[in-house]
């Protein structure tokens, strides 16, 4: 028996050694010279991983079960379970949707594509290729086109925002913000030059947004002919220059020589409304080169962004300002993550799991990250016991509730109150007046806290000592003695209306900082 146990342990150890290959390296780098930080206790850990990998919180039973579990590797098992669960794909899709689209709007096909990518663990470089050169006729992939098409939609009477799209390609996929290089060299970042902007710009300003039609179920983009280099001049020096399509800091793409209509694969035709398709597609060229392993910034950018998502602080900050005068806080760490991710073919799930195994991630009192609007919503509806009712009732049912309390309406209300304004990177969601008033006075919050068959208040009102249940449900931890007393005193104040008293206490906990923060 002993022999078997030793073998089992040895096997597990080997398995561990293979699986946790990167995590110990990360910790070794970070804590080489400093003391290893204290690890989060079980409750802290439990809530954190649920929020990070499920996007919600565990039920009271699930919490109780985990806290009572004595298995030594329960944490690793929980991480694996959550990452393998279907919710992971939705949670990751939410996070990447906010990161990539910065709340520019909602789109079913885009969301579905993101979820599918994370469900099937599509490598990041493949994802980026699909976003940068979308296959609009492919049902599985057309959703990815939203990254570009949304940005090319005209806003009011303004010109099509080709510069904005160019800038975002640099920001999202290479971690560089070339906004100030459109008309001249960047005035504060020496690394960023006008040619870096222009080489990308020539690709994107060559696109035209086309409306959806019978063939294309979504708006799509057509490309024009590029037969010559793009000319640009600095408004500061008036010096003229030119560039072919080019990724920032990269080599120019050769523009094939063509005359007249030679350049067209499919010639445009006014009569048939054919917009044409060129043989030379700068869009595809760039879509290949951005996510290539040779593009060092590509790997660094995504490694940095994933690190930021789960640790709360980027190794390079701001996330879209990688340059020599803004060095990473820990260069060796960034290099390690970038290199390993590249070797692992941009497998994001692998990287996320590795980060989750680190002591850096599992430390106590880590960076306090404010919950996103999506996380707050999900945590709120789970905590108040309304999740099932809302998920079943996803279409507004006027008969049931006059104000249309449906999941969609809840999503809208929470997003309106808690999300950042559009086109802003949602890095640190600060509590706002809007969110405070939302919790204080909004219909949705008050509705969820009224006693209703099967929900939190209904459940708690039936218990004589609801403290444990309340804290486990809302805050994923057990209350200490002081907290238990405080609740009981509160309930004793007005014993005639237990429901009301519980509602108030629950409200106070749900509006408190502890609930908002992923600590």
């Amino acid at each position, binding site marked *: 028996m002993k022999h078997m146990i030793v073998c089992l342990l040895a096997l597990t150890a080997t398995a561990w050694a293979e699986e946790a290959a990167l995590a110990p390296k990360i910790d070794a780098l970070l804590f080489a010279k400093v003391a290893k930080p204290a690890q989060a206790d079980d409750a802290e850990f439990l809530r954190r991983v649920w929020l990070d990998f499920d996007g919600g919180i565990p039920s009271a039973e699930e919490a109780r079960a985990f806290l009572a579990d004595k298995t030594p590797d329960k944490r690793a098992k929980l991480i694996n379970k959550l990452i393998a669960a279907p919710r992971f794909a939705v949670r990751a899709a939410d996070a990447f949707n906010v990161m990539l689209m910065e709340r520019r709007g909602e789109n079913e096909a885009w969301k579905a594509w993101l979820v599918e990518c994370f469900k099937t663990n599509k490598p990041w470089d493949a994802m980026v290729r699909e976003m940068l050169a979308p296959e609009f006729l492919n049902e599985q992939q057309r959703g990815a086109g939203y990254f570009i098409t949304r940005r090319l939609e005209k806003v009011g009477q303004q010109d099509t925002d080709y510069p904005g799209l160019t800038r975002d390609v640099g920001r999202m996929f290479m971690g560089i913000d070339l906004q100030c290089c459109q008309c001249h060299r960047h005035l504060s970042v020496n690394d960023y030059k006008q040619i870096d902007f222009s080489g990308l710009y020539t690709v994107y300003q060559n696109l035209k947004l086309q409306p959806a039609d019978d063939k294309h179920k979504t708006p799509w983009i057509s490309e024009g002919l590029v037969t010559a280099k793009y000319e640009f001049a600095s408004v500061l020096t008036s010096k003229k220059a030119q560039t072919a399509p080019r990724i920032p800091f990269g080599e120019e793409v050769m523009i094939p020589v063509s005359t007249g209509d030679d350049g067209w694969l499919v010639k445009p035709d006014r009569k048939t409304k054919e917009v044409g398709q060129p043989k030379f597609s700068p869009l595809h060229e760039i879509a290949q080169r951005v996510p290539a392993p040779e593009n060092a910034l590509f790997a660094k950018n995504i490694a940095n962004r994933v690190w930021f998502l789960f640790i709360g602080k980027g190794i390079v900050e701001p996330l879209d300002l990688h340059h020599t005068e803004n060095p990473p806080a820990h260069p060796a760490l960034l290099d390690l993550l970038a290199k390993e991710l590249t070797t692992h073919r941009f497998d994001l799930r692998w990287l996320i799991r590795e980060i989750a195994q680190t002591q850096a991630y599992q430390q106590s*009192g880590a960076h*306090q990250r*404010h919950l996103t609007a999506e996380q707050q919503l999900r945590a709120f509806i789970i905590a108040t016991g309304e999740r099932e009712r809302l998920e079943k009732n996803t279409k507004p049912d006027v008969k049931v509730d006059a104000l249309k309390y449906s999941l969609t309406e809840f999503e809208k209300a929470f997003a*309106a*109150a808690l999300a950042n*304004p559009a086109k802003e990177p949602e890095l640190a969601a*600060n*509590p*706002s*007046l*809007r*969110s*405070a*008033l*939302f919790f*204080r*006075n*909004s*219909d949705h919050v*008050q509705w969820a806290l*009224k006693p209703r068959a099967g929900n939190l208040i209904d459940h708690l009102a039936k218990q004589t000592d609801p403290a444990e249940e309340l804290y486990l449900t809302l805050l994923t931890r057990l209350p200490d003695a002081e907290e238990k007393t405080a609740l009981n005193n*509160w309930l004793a104040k007005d014993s005639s209306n237990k429901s*009301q008293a519980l509602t*108030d*206490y629950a*409200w*106070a*906990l749900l*509006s*408190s*900082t*502890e609930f*908002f*923060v992923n*600590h």
Partner: protein
Amino acid sequence: MNPLCTPRDHTFSRRAFLGGGLGLLTSPLFAEAMKQRDKQVLFVWLDGGMSQLETWDPKPNTEFGGPFRSIPTSVPGVHFCELMPKLAKQMHKLCVVRSMCTKDNAHSSGVDRIQRGDPKNRGVPYPHFGAGVAKLLGPGSSGLPPYVWIKPGSGGFRAEDAGFLGPKYGSLAFGDGKPPDNLLRHPDISAEQDAARNELRQMLDQRFAKQREKRVVEANASVFDMANKLMARADIFDTSKLPERDRDRYGRHDFGQHMLVARQMLEAGVRFVKVTSYGWDTHGDNFNAHATMVPKFDQAFSAMLEDLEASGLLKTTLVICLSEFGRTPRINGHVGRDHWSEAWSIAMAGHGVKHGMVVGETNERGTEVKSKPFDIGSAFHTWYRALGIDPMKTEFDNAGQPLPIAHDDMLPIKEALA
């Protein structure tokens, strides 16, 4: 100035003044302090660059003067463009500086520069004038947020307006002058319940703060606090109960209605109220544009001055009106005027500034400032002084780094100060 004493030595401690204790009650300094507490600012921002030639500094019948005539004002010898008949009658309350000469011709940087005073580059983002006033004069007794912004479009809290002073002094914008969503207490909750549960929330937060980073709890506490204060004063957003006559006088248009909300805010004691009107960047059809917009500005601004005077608030409120620059004398092919920082005007009234005064002048064609030109730094010096704050003796403290409140090398517009 004695080079051996640094401004820090002379920093007069406002805290010592105001927090002193009973002994100070009878001191003349205390009366001074009381006076200081009541001072307020109205900051009217005409975004895009209002044309000085179609308003404060007309050049009728000249090469670049445009089609309009000028009209006499209540101050002999001073004329405004014919598009501002109401303000012309109120010139005796105003102080118009016609010799502004600033450096930035671009909106994106210009707006920021002007609103932050364009101090010498210290490597830190300087606060808006409003944030500076909020910091130096405090939120006042109203309990309302100190720096409020009424504007078309969206609202929200802008921490970045406070620059290095910290998010507490950012601007709280009310989109379309409307109260934020969910401002009123929910009908299902009684006042006692609301108060009780909120107190409970605070207690829970304090407990949490003991074990964690205070910063996050503080941020949360401050927004709930702001929510409290606004909920208590929800009435200041409600212009529907005002007499029809008021709403007519200010004009039934965005700017008019926003100025009316601003008046309510000032009456309620908000320290710094900024009102923005957008759409002044008339690179095309400049004359028709100003013909329709200036009279609306004239109407609302004039009504505000009248009301501030009638209520006595004009004595304690500094009123400022400006854009990020003026507009070119030369008229382009689109019948428009372009950006012009070389020679333009700002207007002021109220506390600490002279009234019935024109400072400086431009040449006959409006192409140059003839008298001593003033940059925006000088305006900041002037405004702080008008509020009783001496930029030579007062500094900002950026986590130990002392920073001047207005551009070091500039001086106030003396002729404008009362």
